């Protein structure tokens, strides 16, 4: 085996892949949220629709989005493979004791991740697929005709059931991130009393603020628009 595949198939190397893809997804979430917050603007959807057009036509961003799909798949598949291997390592399930000193989120990353995966697939179908191939009305701003994704989103968020699913998914992401953020640095080999307390604090803030930001949007559209 070459040194590279030996590294990537070792337990330590597999976790490095989880860490790097996870950190990429963490940065993506921030960028995605900043874009989405334009849904809150009181301009009938103009800024959001222009932003959606920019995001789907700029070649650099297109390249990045292919990377994103690949990294999500890699993270999800690798994560589930690690999970199934770890379950097999765990030994008899017939003993009485649990594992009381590990955190709930830490023990349930795969379950949390699977909910996120279902959410992402639904989310892609509902917005991305419709935007690209569905029937979407158009809107015109200053003579530029764009597809009215704002209307698609506004319509989706009128459905109370979907908004509830969306908000629950954000809570799930919060737990995944709360464990994942600091975990990613540990997997990279970065743990030191000089900076680890700061990583943990930033991770906690990030894991609350980002999902909260996402969750506010459907709630605002449902109740205020």
């Amino acid at each position, binding site marked *: 085996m070459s*040194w590279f595949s*030996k*590294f990537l198939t*070792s*337990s*330590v*190397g*597999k*976790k*490095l892949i989880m860490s790097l893809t996870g950190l990429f997804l963490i940065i993506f979430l921030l960028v995605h949220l900043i874009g989405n917050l334009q849904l809150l603007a009181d301009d009938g959807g103009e800024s959001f629709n222009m932003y959606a057009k920019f995001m789907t036509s700029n070649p650099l961003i297109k390249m990045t989005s292919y990377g994103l799909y690949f990294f999500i798949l890699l993270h999800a598949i690798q994560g589930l493979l*690690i999970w199934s*291997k*770890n*379950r*097999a*390592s*765990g*030994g*008899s399930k*017939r*003993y*009485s*004791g*649990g*594992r*009381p*000193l*590990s*955190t709930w989120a*830490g*023990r349930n*990353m795969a379950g949390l991740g699977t909910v996120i995966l279902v959410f992402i697939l639904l989310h892609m179908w509902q917005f991305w697929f419709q935007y690209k191939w569905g029937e979407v009305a158009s809107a015109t701003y200053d003579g530029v005709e764009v597809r009215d994704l704002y209307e698609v989103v506004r319509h989706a968020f009128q459905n109370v059931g979907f908004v509830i699913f969306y908000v629950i998914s954000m809570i799930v992401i919060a737990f995944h991130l709360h*464990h994942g953020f*600091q*975990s990613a640095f*540990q*997997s*990279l*080999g*970065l*743990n*030191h*009393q000089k900076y680890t307390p700061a990583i943990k604090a930033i991770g906690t803030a990030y894991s609350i603020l980002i999902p909260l930001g996402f969750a506010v949007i459907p709630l605002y559209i449902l109740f205020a628009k």
Partner: protein
Amino acid sequence: MKLNLKVWRQKNGQAKGGFETHQVVADEHMSFLEMLDVLNQDLIIGGKEPLAFEHDCREGICGACSMVINGRPHGPNKGTTACQLHMRSFKDGDTIHIEPFRAASFPVIRDLVVDRSAFDRIIESGGYVSVNTGQAQDANAIPVEKNQAGESFDAATCIGCGACVAACPNASAMLFVSAKVSHLALLPQGQVEHENRVQSMVTQMDKEGFGACSNTYACEAECPKEISIENIARLNRSYLGASLSSK
């Protein structure tokens, strides 16, 4: 004090095994293992097979006394081996669950005794320094920085008990392996073979079937020697570094 014990009994590795209930009258000054000695004396007098459990030093330095007490490897007290746990940590009338360390790579041999030779094979794969025989060296010939020596010593206090594996939801051996890699890596003598060591020990660890580390840190919380997970971070970066730079 009167205790209700629910102990795991299993004839051998193939048997299914299950819990057995026993009453024991113990003294609060007894250690946990002395309490089990009382149980075994009762069993022998009653013509029954005594409970098999491992022990050697009974002073917290050998790592033999592997057992899960009320769901926690080595019992409820922080930084304490089962042999150093005393019955004053329990109350009269308590029900106590006692079972073997749980991990596919630690198969049960009998009752509470598990086979931890996987750890021996990991050590054999690189947990040593090669030293030529000959004249004993002057102890101070190689300078060692004070903080490094301290950190190395902290890692070296690992007694190889396996509680970290039993505590981990994935039965990962990362705390043990990282302690062994670290205590050598932090000393000049250990640096010489560091790159090969970290690679072969991780390879052997994976071969033995231990899980990957999910960073739940249950190991650090349960380790009787309070080995720090900073060692696991060191192992992670050393393994990456060694993979990139070794020949």
